[in-house]
């Protein structure tokens, strides 16, 4: 899956870059590095990578700005490294187009797993008429949802919500983005809508709605539709 994929790692701490370079190389990636916002944008434009691992705190700016810039011309998967411990920064980065985040300090397996997931999604994108995670299949064209081969009935709102998550399968989708795509731009603060409808969807598609495996919560940030771990 990761065969030869090129990853651009952006961090201003040389000691972190040293470790990441070895970790990613041994996971089968080609690694480019950049230490500043300017270097990151130059490197991304000169040799477009297949994915980017991006620190949020850079000496000449914020990772959020890099996300925003890159998204103007590329949909390449971006994982942000957040040392801030601040949910708001993470959400800003995700809203600016990042696909996922890991919090420093992180284990190398965690990073490579997230990287695999976003790269797979990028490879699958556009080609799927139906999305399958675990026992759940969402037929986007026919607007049908199947659990273990049996159709379940979702309300139109529930289906739209699940569709957005399915289209971004594996990606952490922020509250704001979900509300914007399903309800519209004037509803982006009504996070309680999500809580109610997500609970309904879980009751219909999860094996155990109290321990969701497919539609998981990232508290304070958003939701993710993923293969059961």
């Amino acid at each position: 899956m990761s065969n030869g994929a090129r990853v651009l790692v952006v961090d201003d701490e040389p000691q972190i870059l040293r470790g990441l370079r070895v970790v990613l190389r041994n996971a089968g990636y080609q690694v480019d590095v950049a230490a500043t916002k300017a270097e990151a944008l130059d490197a991304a434009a000169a040799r477009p990578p297949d994915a980017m691992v991006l620190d949020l705190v850079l000496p000449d700016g914020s990772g959020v700005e890099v996300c925003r810039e890159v998204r103007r011309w590329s949909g390449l998967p971006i994982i942000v490294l957040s040392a801030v411990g601040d949910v708001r920064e993470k959400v800003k980065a995700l809203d600016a187009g990042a696909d996922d985040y890991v919090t420093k300090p992180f284990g190398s397996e965690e990073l490579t797993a997230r990287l695999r997931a976003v790269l797979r999604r990028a490879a699958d994108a556009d080609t799927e008429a139906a999305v399958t995670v675990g026992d759940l299949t969402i037929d986007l064209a026919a607007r049908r949802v199947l659990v273990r081969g049996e159709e379940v009935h979702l309300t139109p709102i529930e289906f739209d919500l699940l569709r957005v998550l399915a289209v971004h399968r594996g990606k952490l989708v922020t509250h704001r983005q979900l509300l914007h795509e399903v309800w519209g731009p004037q509803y982006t603060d009504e996070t309680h809508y999500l809580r109610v409808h997500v609970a309904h969807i879980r009751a219909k598609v999860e094996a155990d709605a109290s321990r969701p495996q497919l539609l998981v919560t990232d508290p304070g940030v958003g939701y993710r539709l993923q293969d059961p771990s």
Partner: protein
Amino acid sequence: MARKGRLRELPLVSLEAVAAIGVATGTVALLEGVAPVTGLGVVYLLAVLLVASRHGEIAALATAVASVLTLNFFFIEPRHHLTISDSRNVAALGVFLIAGMVVSRLAAAVRQRAGESELRAHEAAARERESSLLAAVASSLLSEGPVEAQLSTPGGRLTDAVSRAGLRLELAPTPAPHEGEETVPLQLRSRRAWLYAMPDSGWHREELDRVAEPLAHLVDVAIDREEVAEHTAEAEAARRADVAKTAVLHAISHDLRSPLTAITTATGALSSGPLSEDDRRELLSVLRSESTRLARLVDDLLDLSRIEAGAVNPRPDWCDLHDTVASAAEHVRREHPEHQVELLVSADLPLVRADPAQMERVFSNLIENAVKFSPEDRPVRVSASVAGERVTVRVTDEGRGIPPTARSHVFEPFFRGRAGGAGSGLGLTISKGFVEANGARIQLDSRPGAGTSFAVSFPLVPQPAAPA
């Protein structure tokens, strides 16, 4: 009271009336030959007018009646009798009497109006004095410093305004008037205050009572304002302390995570698969240096919390700055062998009183800072001098200097210069804390482009006796 006053004036009024009638009688006697007597009766009206204007209606009426009788007695036939033979003269005297009554009525009204307006003028003057006092007190209380201080400042704007009005204002639990002063209590909400009128101030008691109320309101408002301002200042200070604390926590969280992340990734990398010998060596060096960095950061944080808690507890001893600086410089040289550190500290520098271990930390921090912020080919210089009753050690670099806007922040925790990203951002904060806990001073002198110099100065103290 008014009646008693008038009775007391009776002899004087009678005398005046008699005199006026006498003068009128004399005048009529002189003019009797050139004009008819009944026409000359007008002269008596002048006497009535005079008395009316000076003493009011009743005295004037009496004068008018007396004038009629006098005129009749002396000039109307038959003379020297109070009888009248000619009926025309009866009519003339009747007319005269009515004219006298009208004149006395008019004169009395004029006199009363004059009296009233005099009273009004007096009252207006009193009110003006009261309001100008209140205005002066208000503008002073509401624009100058604390109420208490204003009231007890001789020659201050408030005391000046009050004493110009012949008054004194005092915040005190019990009244303490000077000799002969009248005392009026001010009804304040939370304190007690007193207004004293000096004996010759010309204030009536009712005027004092009248100004006491608005004066009390003014003082109340000023005290309230002061309390609100104090609360606001406290709230603002608390808010700022909160912001600072959040910033420090933020910085700590970032600073602890960075070396931890480097360590976890290097550890992950070591077990991630086949490694070249170079990779292995590099990853181990990352582990070593990041662990050291982490340990040092934790030490610095402990020092910072001790400094902020006022728990530095230096152990002052005779401190040989030459030795201390040499040891600190050696420390830095071991970590940065590539950078030259020049020592220009004479061995016979006077001893100072300070904790030598803490001073070593201070000079290590300052020298290391200088090394980090100047190019490798530019030596860092440490010099010492004695001047103005102080012993001063100066650590000077030839780096880029500190921009003026950053100068006031360099001693703040987690403030970092452009090039020194690897440090804890606490070195200068800790140095300043140690220096000040030891009774010394630290000063910054920097010229952009020409370098920076930190001067640590100690008071010069009498030297201990040399060992025998």
